[in-house]
Each structure stands twice: as C-alpha cells, then as structure tokens.
C-alpha cells in the first residue's frame, strides 16, 4: 500500500517541480539559506548518481550474462565483455584504481581504443563531405560551396594566389555563421524553457505515467 503511494505520478511530478523550481530559485536569488539547501540537494544527486552507476554496471552484466547463458547470437562478444568487466572491477577492488592491472587496462586498452574511435572521425568527415558534395538539394549545394571556400581559404598555397579568399572566409564565419548560430541558440533555448514548463506542470506524460 505504501509503495503504491510512492508510485503515484502526481508525487513524482510534484518532486520534479519542487526540485526544479528550487534550483531555479538558487540561480535567481542571493540568499545563503537557499544556497545551503541546494548544496545538500546536489550532494543527494551525486550520491544517487553513484548508486545509478552501480545499477548500470550490474544491469550491463545481467544483460550480457543472459546472452552468454542462453548462447544467443554473438554470445562470445558478451562473454568477452563480462570477463573484462569482472577483471577490471575485482582488480580495482583489490589493488585500488591506481593499481597495476586497472592502470594497465586503462592505458593499454581503453585509452588506445578511445583514441582509435576518435581518429575514425577523420575518415568519416571525408566520406560525409563526399556525400554532401553530391548536391542532393539547394541547401546542400550552398553548404558545399561555402565548405569549398572555407577549406580553400585555410590552404596556404591557395591563399598565395587568391588572397581575397581569406576575407570571404572570415565574412562567412563572422556574419552568416554567427547570425544562424544565434537564431538557432535562441530558438533552442525557448524550446528548452517550454519543455521545462511542460515537465514542471506535469504535462510531459511520456516520461512519467
């Protein structure tokens, strides 16, 4: 019975609205009493974040263990994931985060893999540019033209022969680009305000039912 009360969506919306408006109050009002309560709320949020990380890790382990147990398609990747997580967690618990095994795993596996993923972007930018240059629409034609000018203006050899390109590039970057950026940001900010209002007023029903 008690648990049913805590599941009521009105209670959830009331809590969301209270915390949201309190944090806004903290932003708007210069009052030490408000700031100290906010500091406590943020501590709770950090604590909750820590618990959620444990939950996320356990959920990932549960999901992949199930795949391995049922020998579903590509189960060996899940087995690899479970093994790596267990080695990382237990070596961290025994040796601490600065221990030899966690540090080795971080420096020799996670870090190079992350750098590799980031490096792939260079190739993806080229393939995305190639597809953009196929001019599927007027907008993409304009985008391609501006891209060619900006890229060419960054090339020292081209700018020796066509020095005017630098001024054209600077104009594109500081006038249409900044104008579009500000319009985009103002629109998105107003959209974010009304999304917040929907949540505070309990109208965003897709999130809490």
């Amino acid at each position: 019975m008690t648990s049913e009360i805590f599941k009521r969506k009105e209670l959830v919306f009331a809590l969301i609205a209270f915390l949201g408006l309190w944090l806004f109050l903290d932003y708007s009002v210069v009052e030490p009493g408000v700031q100290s309560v906010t500091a406590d709320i943020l501590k709770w949020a950090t604590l909750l974040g820590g618990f959620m990380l444990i939950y996320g890790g356990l959920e990932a382990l549960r999901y992949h263990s199930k795949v391995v147990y049922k020998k579903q398609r590509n189960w060996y990747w899940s087995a690899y994931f479970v093994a790596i997580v267990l080695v990382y967690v237990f070596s961290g618990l025994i040796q601490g985060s600065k221990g030899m095994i966690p540090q080795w795993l971080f420096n020799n596996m996670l870090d190079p893999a992350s750098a590799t993923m980031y490096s792939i972007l260079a190739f993806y930018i080229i393939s995305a540019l190639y597809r953009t240059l196929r001019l599927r629409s007027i907008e993409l034609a304009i985008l391609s033209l501006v891209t060619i000018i900006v890229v060419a203006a960054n090339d020292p050899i081209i700018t020796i022969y066509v020095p005017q390109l630098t001024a054209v590039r600077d104009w594109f970057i500081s006038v249409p680009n900044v104008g579009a950026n500000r319009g985009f940001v103002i629109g998105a900010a107003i959209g974010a305000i009304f999304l917040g209002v929907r949540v505070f007023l309990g109208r965003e029903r897709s999130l809490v039912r």
Partner: protein
Amino acid sequence: MVSFAHPLTIAILALAFIISYYNIRRAKIGTLPTLRRKIPAVDAIEQAVGRATELGRPIIFTPGLSSLETIDAPQTLAGLSILSYVSKLAAKTKTPIFVGVSKATILPLAQEIVKMACLEAGVPEAVETQHVEYLSDQQFAYAAGYIGIMAREKAASNIFTGTLWAESLIFAEAGHAAGCFQIGGTAVWTQMAFIVPTCDFVLLGEELMAAGAILSNDPEQISTIVSHDFLRLIAIALVLIAFALTLLKVPVLSYINGG
C-alpha cells in the same frame, strides 16, 4: 532583504509560465488554434519504424550522451519523449528495438519508458524483444558499443536524438554504411554540419524540443508549442528593438550586459 541575481531571466521564465498556463486553459476549452507547420522529421519517425517492420530488422535508438543533471537535460528529455513514441510504434508492429544508453541515470527511465510503451500498445509480450542496454559513460566506448549493435543486429533504422557531440558523425556514417534510414536530432550547434548532410531527416534545435509534444497528440502539450511561438515573437521583437536602438546610438546592449 532578498536580492535577485538574474531579474531578466526570472521575468522570462515567469512570462513563459503565464503564457503556458493561458494556452493550456485554451487547449482545455478547445479554443487553441491547430498546429499548421509540419516537421518532416517527426512525420518520418513512422516511416523509420515502418521500414524496419517491412525489412524484419530492428530499430536502433539512443537519447544521446548527456544525462538529466546537466545543462543538456532538456535535449535528453526530448530524446526520451521521442523514444516513448518510437517504442510504442515498435511494440504495435512487433519490431525489435535496441536502445543504447550512455548514462546510468538514464537507464531506468529508458527501461520504464519502453516497458510502459509495450503495455500501452497492448502488447506486453513485446517487452521480451525490446532491449535497453547501458553501454558506457565513456564517450567513445559508448559510440563503439552503439555502432557495434547497429552492425551486428543489421538495424534498418537509426534514430539518434538528444545531446550529441563527436559521436554524431560516427553514428551517422556507421548507419549509412549499415544501410539504415536515419533520423538525427540535436540542439548542439557544432554538430549540425555533420547531421544535416548525413541523415535522411533532421530535428534541428527547437524542433527536437517540440517533437515530443507533437507526437503525444495531446492538446495540452501542443499548447506549449503555441506558447513557444508566442515567446519567439517576443524575442524577435526584442532583437529588432535592440537593433533599432543601437542604430540610434542608444547604449541598450551595454545596459543589458551590465556595462
């Protein structure tokens, strides 16, 4: 004596609440004008689910890299409200969906949204074919996990809406390589140049924030989009007034900036 730190911000938020309350009242009594402007990417969501159903392949979805406790929270919330609609359509058509989550705080919310969508669609058994997976808090581990699922499961449609940074291009290009129908959406300005040319449909900034309300088909939620348009008109008027005053050498901008 209480002093206010950001009076202009308070005034804008108070105005937003008043306009919203007024328009919600109008929606309740049925005097709110209907929305006339269509957002192609919102209409394309049905197409994305339909394509996956026809091909007998799954949909892959992510609400982005951010969580609910940062400044990017509205984008994550918008992504999650789109997830609600996508998963309901997927449940109705018995199409599997894979949801890749990058923040553990989002995981229970995404799991609950997908579960409730299956129940509301009247297909509780569909929960078994819907997968919500926590990938990693690390940006590129999350990106690698996401495109890995995309390639292994041969996703037919790739929907990524929320806060996206460098991984947006990785998702879009890997999705293109996997032959996915793609809908991207974010309010991160720097990623627009990647998402616009690489995706079939795009939710640009404020469209992302409005998508959830449009998809809900709920007049009270749609009323906030009318309120949004109203505040946008005020913003345009303020920009024009500031422009005119600056031309007349009235130092309005330096006054607002506190100079």
